[in-house]
C-alpha cells in the first residue's frame, strides 16, 4: 500500500511540475470533464441518453448534444419532471445521464427517492456545487446535495477534484447499475491525475510528501473536490515545519474507502475533514460515523465545512470566509500540536 502511495505521489509531483512548465492545458473544471466523458461513453454505448434542465452550456452536457443530437433531450427548467422522465428512459433499457446545478436537484428529491423503489439506473450530475462558485451567491450553491444523495439507501456518491478523475468516474457510472451521483465544481482546477492512478467505487487517493515518514507530527486531511487543492497547498507548507500532513482524496463519498481511512487514521491519530458543504450529512458525518463505529482512538478530530450562510464573492474569499481554505487547514493542524 505504502509503496503504491509513494509511487503515485511521485507521479503527482512529477506530472504536476512537468505540466506546469509546458504549454499543455493543465486546468480544466470537472464539469468540462463531465461533458467530454459523456461524449466518450456515448461513442461506446448507444444506450446512453443525456437529459439536462436548460443548463447544458454550464454542465457541458452540450458536448454530448453536439455529437449525438438524437440522444440528447432538453428538459427545460423542470427538474422534477427530468428525474422521472429519466426513470422512464431507464425502464426502456437506456442509460440516462441527467444534469443540472446541484442546488436545483434538491427540488427533485422526492422523484429520486421514489426512483430507488423502481430499482432505477440513474446517473445524476450536480454541477456548481459549494460556495466555491462565488459570485452567483447562495441561491446557486449546492450545499445539501451530498446529504441528499447519500441518504438514498443504495446510492453511490462521487465528488472528483480534477477533470481526469471525473472522466474515469463517469465511465464507472455508465458501466455499473444503480443510482449514481457525481458532484461537479464550477471552477477550473489543475489536472493532477493520469494513467498512473486508478479510480473505483469505494476508492481514494493518498497524497503524501513525507516519504521518509520520519516526522513525528502527523495529521490527516480527508477531503474531496475543490478543497483537495487547499489541503495539498497546506501540505506543502506544513512539510517545511516538519509536520507530515497526509491528504486523502476521498472522491468516493459513498461508499467510503473504509480500509484506507481507518489505516491512515490509526497512523496519524489527528483527523480533519474538509468539505465545501454544510455540516450535516456530508463527508464529515460519513467519516466520523466510520471512526466511531470502529472505536478508533483519536487525539484530534475536526470538521471544516460551510457553517455560515454564504454570500456572493470571489471563490477564494468564500473558501476563506467559511474556513475551508489552505490557511484554515494550516491553522487547524497547528492547533493540534
Amino acid at each position, binding site marked *: 500500500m505504502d509503496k503504491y502511495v509513494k509511487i503515485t505521489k511521485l507521479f503527482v509531483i512529477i506530472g504536476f511540475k512537468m505540466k506546469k512548465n509546458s504549454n499543455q492545458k493543465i486546468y480544466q473544471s470537472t464539469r468540462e470533464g463531465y461533458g467530454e466523458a459523456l461524449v466518450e461513453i456515448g461513442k461506446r454505448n448507444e444506450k446512453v441518453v443525456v437529459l439536462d434542465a436548460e443548463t447544458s452550456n454550464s454542465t457541458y452536457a452540450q458536448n454530448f448534444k453536439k455529437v449525438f443530437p438524437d440522444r440528447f433531450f432538453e428538459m*427545460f427548467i423542470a427538474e*422534477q*419532471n427530468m*428525474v422521472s422522465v429519466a426513470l*422512464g*428512459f431507464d425502464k426502456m433499457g437506456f442509460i440516462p445521464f441527467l444534469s443540472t446545478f446541484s442546488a436545483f436537484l434538491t427540488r427533485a428529491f422526492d422523484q429520486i427517492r421514489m426512483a430507488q*423503489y*423502481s430499482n432505477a439506473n440513474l446517473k445524476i450530475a450536480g454541477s456548481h456545487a459549494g460556495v466555491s462558485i462565488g459570485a452567483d451567491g447562495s441561491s446557486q450553491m449546492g450545499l445539501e446535495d451530498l446529504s441528499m444523495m447519500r441518504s438514498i439507501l443504495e446510492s453511490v456518491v462521487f465528488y472528483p477534484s480534477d477533470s481526469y478523475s471525473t472522466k474515469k468516474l463517469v465511465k464507472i457510472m455508465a458501466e455499473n447499475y444503480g443510482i449514481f451521483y457525481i458532484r461537479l465544481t464550477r471552477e477550473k482546477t489543475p489536472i493532477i491525475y493520469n494513467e498512473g492512478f486508478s479510480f473505483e467505487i469505494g476508492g481514494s487517493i493518498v497524497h503524501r510528501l513525507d516519504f521518509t515518514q520520519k516526522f513525528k507530527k502527523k495529521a490527516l486531511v480527508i477531503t474531496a473536490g475543490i478543497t483537495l487543492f487547499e489541503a495539498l497547498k497546506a501540505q506543502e507548507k506544513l512539510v517545511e515545519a516538519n509536520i507530515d500532513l497526509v491528504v486523502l482524496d476521498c472522491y468516493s463519498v459513498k461508499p467510503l474507502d473504509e480500509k484506507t481511512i481507518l489505516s491512515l487514521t490509526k497512523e496519524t491519530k489527528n483527523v480533519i475533514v474538509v468539505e465545501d458543504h454544510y455540516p450535516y450529512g456530508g463527508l464529515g458525518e460519513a467519516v466520523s460515523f466510520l471512526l466511531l463505529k470502529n472505536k478508533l482512538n483519536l487525539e484530534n478530530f475536526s470538521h471544516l465545512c460551510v457553517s455560515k450562510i454564504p454570500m456572493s464573492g470571489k471563490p477564494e474569499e468564500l473558501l476563506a470566509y467559511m474556513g475551508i481554505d489552505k490557511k484554515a487547514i494550516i491553522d487547524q493542524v497547528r492547533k493540534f500540536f
Partner: protein
Amino acid sequence: MSENLKNICQKIRKLILTSTTIAQSGHPTSSLSAVELMTVLFFSGFFNEKNDEVIFSKGHAAPLLYALYAVLGKIDEKKLETLRQFGSVLEGHPTPRFPYVKVATGSLGQGLSIGLGMALGKKLLKNKGRVFVLLGDSEISEGQVWEAVQLASYYKTDNLIAIVDINRLGQRGQTMLGWDLLSYQKRFESFSWKTFLVFDGHNVDEIKKVYQEALLSIEKKPKVILAKTIKGKGVSFLEDKDGWHGKALTKDELEKALEELRKNDDEKITSEDNNRSYDNQSQKNLEMKNLLGRLKSYFN
C-alpha cells in the same frame, strides 16, 4: 361483448372490495371509480401487453391493478387475499416487486413524467408501442404533472395517452375543478394535447368508442382521455360520498356491498332469458358462497 365487459367489471369490483376488507386498509373507492376505464383498456384489445406500457400514476388504485391481473389470469385470485401483507408482492402501493409493474408509484404526480420518458424511449427504439398512464384528478394539482404535459407536447409524443379518472373527490373533499370536464379540457388543449371526453366513465360502450377514437387519431400530439367517474361506484353507500377515501369496508359493510352487487347482477340476468344466464347465475351464487365462507375464516 359489452355484457362480458360488464361482468368483468362486476367481478373486479368484488375483488377490490374483498381484498381491501381482508387487508383492513387500502383505497377501495378510488379503485372503484376507474374500474370501467381500466377494464375496457385491458379486455377490449386496446392494450398490447408486448409493446405497450401502463402506469398507475394514482398508485393508491393498486387493488384495481391487482384485480385486473387476477382476472387476466396472470396471478392467482386467491393471492389477492395477501394484499398489503408482509412479504406479499401486492404492496399497498405498486412497486416492481409485483412483476407486472415497472415503476413504483404512490407519491402522486410522477407517473405522467415516467410515462413520457418511456414514450420518448420507445420512439428512440422505433418501437410502435404506446404508453398509457392512469391519473387521478386530485394529483393533477401537482406542478410536475404540468411539467410533463408541456414537455410531452413539445416533443409531440403521440404515443403517450393519459387517462384521467375524474371522480371529483380527493382525500378530504372536492377537488378544485370537481366534475368540470370542460375546464380540464381547456387546460390540456392550451398545452396542445388532443383531448377526448367521456361523460359517463362507467359506460363501457362510451369508453370503448372514445379509446377507439383516441388510438385512431393520427395527430402528432399526446392524448388525454378525461372521464367523469364516481368515486366508490357500484356500492350505493360509497358512491360520491365524502369520508370514504382510503378506508376499507368492515366485514358487515362488505357483505352488504357484495349483496348489492349481486342484486345488480341478478337484475341484469333476469332481463336475459336463456339457459346460459341461468347457469351463470347459479355459478355466481356458488362463487359468492365460497367467498363469504373464506371471509368468515379471516374474521372469526
